[in-house]
């Protein structure tokens, strides 16, 4: 499933660029014509990366970023591009494959295709905002929206204030207009945006997997007995097999039950502390918010340092203890199966014997103690205001060279001010690089999965306006490339990440750093001083919340684009609006659809 998303975002990373810092007008037009003609590329950009430190070839690395429709394998896509009659791909890459060949032969083209396949990198993770929509569909739906507005202007005097009649007239007009015959078929939706959109459908999968697992175990346990029932009592070997299968399946069954129970108890505790208790007790809610705020606080205060220390002294050991208990409880059946005597004679006597009433009592006391702590802090904060002010007042800090933007990057932003914005960001993986690469890939799997299954309405968390955002680990795990196509401006885009998707962004970028690097070519940005990603707390806190450091880090990592292609030039909101109008015009006539049509035409 994730592969489908990852294949939509490709980067071709080609070392040894010998051209300049600009794409010629001729090549620019040829690329536009090519990408327009193949009609499956939403966005394309070309940028130059500085050569990898220590690489034998110190010429810049050319990156071609392609964001394409769902369902195309990279080979099919590249085949279409390379074998297109206008030859733009040869004009771009030919000199890096066979220098001096102006008109490629079939063999040259095959060589180029092979080379591009070896250079290509599908995204290690990514998010598609306006998904399930082809380039053609977006263009046609935009046309439908535009024409409907024009028609509505004509019909307005006739239908006045009768909304239902007005919507009906527009729907009739759309139905009878042969230009929009295609729209009668409902807009395609992938499973997680369509039938699987409800939370019930999403929960059904893990529940089904658990049930299936228990069914499989039950079948395995039953098999020897079924054999005996059919064929009579087994011999020695058969009895041994039956015994082994029975014990193994029973052990696995018990481990599974224990694991499920431990998971359920932990999930219940998490829910209890994060949902009903904050809802019921103000002091607990405030304390919980305060802990999160302190852990996220970008500028240190005594309170944030104390909370961080408290987290290490109390929080981490407590969580580890809970995890250890859950693991011990889950795997206890295995220990009993392997060493029953040791468990009975050595371990069991050491375990406290508590009744259910005692366990309940301890839980109640623990909750009361937690609430008491929250109340105490609230009370201290309220009545010792002087002390409190000092405790929460920021400490001095130094953030050097903030709010600096390279002119080439700003110029790119200014050129795209009327359309979809774009960024290239290049960072280095922190050492040990294999560990950073592994962590990043896990984080990106989570982000991609969440984006595919849960964030299906065009927002990544609470961050809107992302068309295609994707991450690539390149150069054998040494560098990390982030490409994004988004609505708005860069600062606002990062604000959205800080406020709307802080955890995912921190997880994806915290394993990187910036090393000094020379500009790829004159006029392009370089990095004079090394710097780290903003400091994080407990892996997921702080990080991107340090706005100055984060924006400065992101800005310094940016590279300008030399070429940019945007097939549709529509915002995510406009795309969603057009699809919504199509569904409303050609759907059943009801209040909701009528209102959607009216609101769409008045924008």
């Amino acid at each position, binding site marked *: 499933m994730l592969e489908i998303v990852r294949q939509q975002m490709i980067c071709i990373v080609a070392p040894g660029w010998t051209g300049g810092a600009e794409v010629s007008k001729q090549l620019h037009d040829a690329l536009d014509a090519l990408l327009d003609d193949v009609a499956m590329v939403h966005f394309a950009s070309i940028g130059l990366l500085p050569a990898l430190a220590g690489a034998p070839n110190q010429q810049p690395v050319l990156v071609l970023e392609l964001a394409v429709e769902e369902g195309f394998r990279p080979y099919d896509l590249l085949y279409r591009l390379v074998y297109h009659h206008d030859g733009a791909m040869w004009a771009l890459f030919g000199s890096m494959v066979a220098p001096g060949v102006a008109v490629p032969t079939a063999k040259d083209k095959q060589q180029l295709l092979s080379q591009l396949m070896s250079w290509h990198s599908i995204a290690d993770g990514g998010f598609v905002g306006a998904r399930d929509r082809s380039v053609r569909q977006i263009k046609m739906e935009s046309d439908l929206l535009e024409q409907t*507005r024009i028609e*509505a*202007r004509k019909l*307005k005097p006739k*239908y006045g*204030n009768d*909304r239902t009649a*007005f*919507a009906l007239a527009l729907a009739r007009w759309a139905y009878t207009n042969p230009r929009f015959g295609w729209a009668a078929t409902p807009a395609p939706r992938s499973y997680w945006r369509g039938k699987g959109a409800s939370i019930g459908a999403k929960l059904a999968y893990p529940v089904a997997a658990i049930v299936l697992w228990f069914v499989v175990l039950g079948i395995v346990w039953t098999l020897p007995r079924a054999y005996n029932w059919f064929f009579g009592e087994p011999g020695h070997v058969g009895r041994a097999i039956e015994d082994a299968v029975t014990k193994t399946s029973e052990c696995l069954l018990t481990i599974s039950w224990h694991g499920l129970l431990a998971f359920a108890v932990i999930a219940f505790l998490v829910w209890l502390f994060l949902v009903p208790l904050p809802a019921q007790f103000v002091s607990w809610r405030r304390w919980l918010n305060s802990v999160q*705020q302190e852990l*996220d*606080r*970008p*500028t*240190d205060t*005594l309170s944030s340092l104390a909370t961080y220390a408290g987290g290490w002294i109390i929080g981490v050991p407590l969580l580890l203890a809970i995890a250890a208990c859950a693991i011990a409880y889950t795997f206890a059946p295995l220990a009993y199966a392997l060493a029953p005597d040791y468990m009975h004679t050595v371990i069991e006597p050491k375990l406290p014997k508590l009744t259910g009433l005692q366990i309940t009592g301890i839980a109640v006391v623990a909750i009361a103690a937690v609430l008491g702590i929250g109340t105490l802090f609230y009370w201290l904060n309220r009545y010792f205001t002087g002390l409190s002010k*000092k405790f929460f*007042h*920021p*400490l*001095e*800090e130094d*953030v*050097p*060279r*903030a*709010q*600096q*933007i390279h*002119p080439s990057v*700003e*110029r790119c*932003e*200014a*050129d795209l*001010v*009327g359309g979809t914005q774009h960024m290239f960001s290049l960072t280095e993986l922190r050492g040990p690089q294999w560990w950073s690469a592994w962590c990043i890939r896990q984080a990106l799997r989570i982000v991609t999965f969440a984006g595919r299954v849960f964030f299906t309405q065009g927002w990544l968390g*609470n961050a809107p306006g992302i068309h295609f955002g994707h991450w690539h680990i390149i150069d054998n795990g040494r560098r990390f490339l982030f490409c994004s196509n988004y*609505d*708005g*401006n860069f*600062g*606002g885009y990062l*604000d959205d990440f*800080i*406020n*709307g998707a802080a955890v995912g962004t921190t997880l994806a970028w915290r394993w990187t750093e910036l090393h000094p690097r020379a500009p790829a070519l004159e006029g392009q940005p370089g990095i004079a001083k090394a710097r780290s990603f903003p400091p994080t707390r407990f892996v997921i806190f702080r990080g991107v*919340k*340090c*706005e*100055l450091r984060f924006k400065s880090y992101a800005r310094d990592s940016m590279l300008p684009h030399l070429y940019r292609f945007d097939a549709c030039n529509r*915002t995510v*909101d*406009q795309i969603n*609006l057009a699809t919504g109008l199509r569904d409303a015009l050609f759907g059943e006539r009801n209040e909701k659809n009528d209102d959607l049509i*009216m*609101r769409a*035409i*008045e*924008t």
Partner: protein
Amino acid sequence: MKHAPRLSEQSHDVQGMLKSGFGWLKSSRFWLLTIRDGCEDQARAWLSRLVDSKLVVSAKCIAKGKTKPEASIEEAVSVAFSFAGLKKLGCTEAETHPFPTAFSSGMGSALRQDLLRDAPRDEWRWSDVEGADGRQTVHILVAQWWVLGATARMEEPDPAVFVVRTVENNPCSFADKDGGLREPFGFRDGLAQPVIRDLREEEGAALRQARKDAGQFYEDRVVEPGEFILGYRNEYDELTYCPNVNEWPQSGDRFTLNGSYLAVRQIEQYVDAFRQFEAANDQQTCERLMGRRKDGMPLGWQGPLGSNSAADAFRYRVEDANGFVCPKGAHIRRSNPRDSLGIDVQSSIKSSKLHRLLRRGRPYREKTEAGDREGIFFIACNADLERQFEFIHQRWLQNPRFGALDKQDDPIVGSQPSGRTFTVPGSPSGSEVTLASFTGARGGGYFFLPGIAALKFIAEGRAGAKLGPMHRLEAAAS
């Protein structure tokens, strides 16, 4: 571990305009000064005399204690410098803490023209960058306010030292019975200002009344001081970045502490065009363009005229999600979308607080051979030009795709050519009006409003280098 400065202990160093718009000083004049080559010392001397005259009031002087500012302050002056001006006066930015790119490149640059989506700037007469043909490069901006009818005390700049341009007060600005400020189209102005936490203009009973009038919405307008004053905690809970200059003593606080950036625009308002539009349509349509009634109250306001605080106590998401009351593209809804753009009310309010401006402009009037020209001398104080002024201008006001709109920029200050449309949502499908061009910029620039100690440092030239962190207090107090 040393604590960062506290605003309550630094208000003596903060220029007064960050605390108050000097609403009781109803005459104003804005001086746009260019230092002539070779006259830097005389310019500093003039600045020094200006500082010594005590007209550059601090935030501490305003409404402190029982004395109302009306009783004690009859004239006030604020001084700010463009990046070119700071350079001219000998300040060079520190390598480790340079000024933000937006400020150093200047509003007048070609790059920022594109970034801000400005219309061609053929009619700009002044800006903040050097080398723009036909435009005065403004080095120093002096804002002067004084009691209506009184004689101003400020020593006027010498034309031999400065190229002087003034933007004069519009005498009709406060002509209404209610004494409130009105801009040339006839709307109440200066409403819906953010309230700086720890530096509120209203105190005591006035504050209690403002809270009462705003009810649950009061906190929507309270913004952390770091959004407007450099060196303090901002809405991200982070200390705002403080650039530095090489000449400033390198130990202790930085040069820009207690300062702010001003985004300034001289916006001419085509009053005749607006009147014609009003005559062709009606007052209600004009109010919908603005998003407010002419008396300043929200469009959905019922009952008698409310206070300024009540006029700012509303949201959009729940009561007016579709823009039936205040159209989605209306000027005030674009410049402060309140709770309407995010995923829910709280996150939207939090997000919109990252993009607030403290407006300190005044209406102006200039006499020309062709007749009077009126407009607003717009001044917006902010601590992060890119995140605040530029974001609002580029993404909200001038963005033809703002919200879910299509090809519509701001109906009042939009830069698209005339003939553009404005949608008035409504049941069943709203209506459209065709707009003329109602405004045009005549100049603009980014300025740095220094703290009072930094201002003295600039005025005193290199002598100011003797100022240490402990001297900031003494310098500002003297």
